[in-house]
């Protein structure tokens, strides 16, 4: 297509002019960019739909049908898998990090959604391998389109903040056992993150936020404990450990 327009340019010696041939090559990388952006937009749409579903658990009514919600969300993740499968075809697999910035954000969001889903199902931290499987991508870089470790960690940090909110809303919905379980979970997560040496980047900033999530949940636990609500009551929630 572009090769039609180039010859019409009257450079003295176009065929020997490498600047120009470079320009063509460069433009074809622009092509990739555009196509990647399109697929990423579909992923963002699906992520938005999953988010709306999962947000429902914060509602007082939402606590009851968590399992049903999880099933629905699982279905949406199959859409995610096919969209990611299309994304993979849009660029050579060894150039993952060349275009990384374009899907980084949505991938972190999907990691968050997957980890939230798995938490609601099992109250466990989803492993990096498990997220990769849910998303239908690779765990190791060498094998192709994979889940970058910082993206995984970033998504997990979002989970922490979502769970501290969930703890607050659990209390409103009179589920007093869940905040305690969340506290244990987030504490363990916090302990894990403390092992990491982060650079001064966005991951570090989000990690700083984790401290506030830990603090918030600690306050909820305190509120429950001074009122004797922290252990006296049988938990009726759907995901007892």
């Amino acid at each position, binding site marked *: 297509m572009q090769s039609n327009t180039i010859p019409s340019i009257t450079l003295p010696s176009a065929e020997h002019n490498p600047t120009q041939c470079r320009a063509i090559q460069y433009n074809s990388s622009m092509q990739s960019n555009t196509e990647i952006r399109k697929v990423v937009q579909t992923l963002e749409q699906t992520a938005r739909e999953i988010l709306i579903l999962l947000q429902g658990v914060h509602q007082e009514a939402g606590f009851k049908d968590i399992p049903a919600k999880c099933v629905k969300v699982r279905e949406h993740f199959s859409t995610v898998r096919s969209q990611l499968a299309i994304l993979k075809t849009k660029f050579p697999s060894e150039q993952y990090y060349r275009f990384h910035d374009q899907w980084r954000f949505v991938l972190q969001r999907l990691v968050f959604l997957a980890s939230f889903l798995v938490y609601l199902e099992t109250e466990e931290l989803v492993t990096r391998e498990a997220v990769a499987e849910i998303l239908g991508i690779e765990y190791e870089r060498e094998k192709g389109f994979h889940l970058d470790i910082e993206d995984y960690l970033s998504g997990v940090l979002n989970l922490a903040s979502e769970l501290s909110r969930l703890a607050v809303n659990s209390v409103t919905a009179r589920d007093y056992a869940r905040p305690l379980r969340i506290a244990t979970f987030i504490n363990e997560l916090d302990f894990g993150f403390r092992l990491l040496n982060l650079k001064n980047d966005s991951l570090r900033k989000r990690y700083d936020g984790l401290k506030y999530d830990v603090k918030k949940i600690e306050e909820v636990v305190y509120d429950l404990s001074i*009122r004797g609500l922290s252990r006296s009551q049988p938990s009726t929630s759907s995901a007892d450990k």
Partner: protein
Amino acid sequence: SQRKEEKGSGVGSSSSMVIAFKSFQHELDTKHDKYERLVKLGRDITIESKRTIFILHRIISDPNKDGVLTEAENKLDVVRLKIKQVAQELVGEDLYQYNRAFTPGLQEYVEAVTFQHFIKTRCLLCLEDINKPLIFEEEKSDVKSTSIELLDDPLIPVLEKKQSNPNILSLQVTPVDYLLGVADLTGELMRLCIGSVGNGDIDTPFELGQFLREIFDGFSYIGNTGPYEISRKLYALKQSLAKVENACYTLKVRGSEIPKHMLADLFSTKSELMEHDEDIS
């Protein structure tokens, strides 16, 4: 184009001007090379100091406090070896000429050692005590000898050669680097505070609040008479202080409820809630 030739031959490569410029070339290259080596050492110092700070933050949640402190100390020993290399590069030089190359590294080191010191003693490590461990014994005797003297004069030379102590090497942190490092320390202290609350340590936040207010007073006193970067960091310092004060506030406010609610509201609330639980299900 015969004029081309004419020009080239006009300047003999042995003219005195050319000889002078050849020596300038050598002088400039030597300086730039040294600067570049110092930049690299500076980056190493920065990275290892940052890692030390991460190790120290683990003190909050790690049951083995002593292990954490030992690990941090070992890391800092490595940093000090790097600083010694910087000192070796600077033997006989004017420290301020190369200062920009490693000043971020030294600031980060200040941040790390003052953080370590706060955790161990709840006090601010002063510049003199930072500089003492930065006087090194020099093994090789072929390097120009240096020494350091601690005077009352605030303007003491930071890198000082002395005839009397021929085997001493030293790199001394400047007051400005010290101040900037301490300014950054306050950010780490804020993190320590929030982390402490989250991990159920309710004493540390109040100690930190007091400590940060003192540092804030100190920086307030310097005000805009300090270097430009200080004014910039003052804002961040104020934010950190506000976060710590808010954390202390929250602890006190929630603490205020214990006696009353524990006794009065406890049973009524619980029974009331149980009723409503049935409503929902």
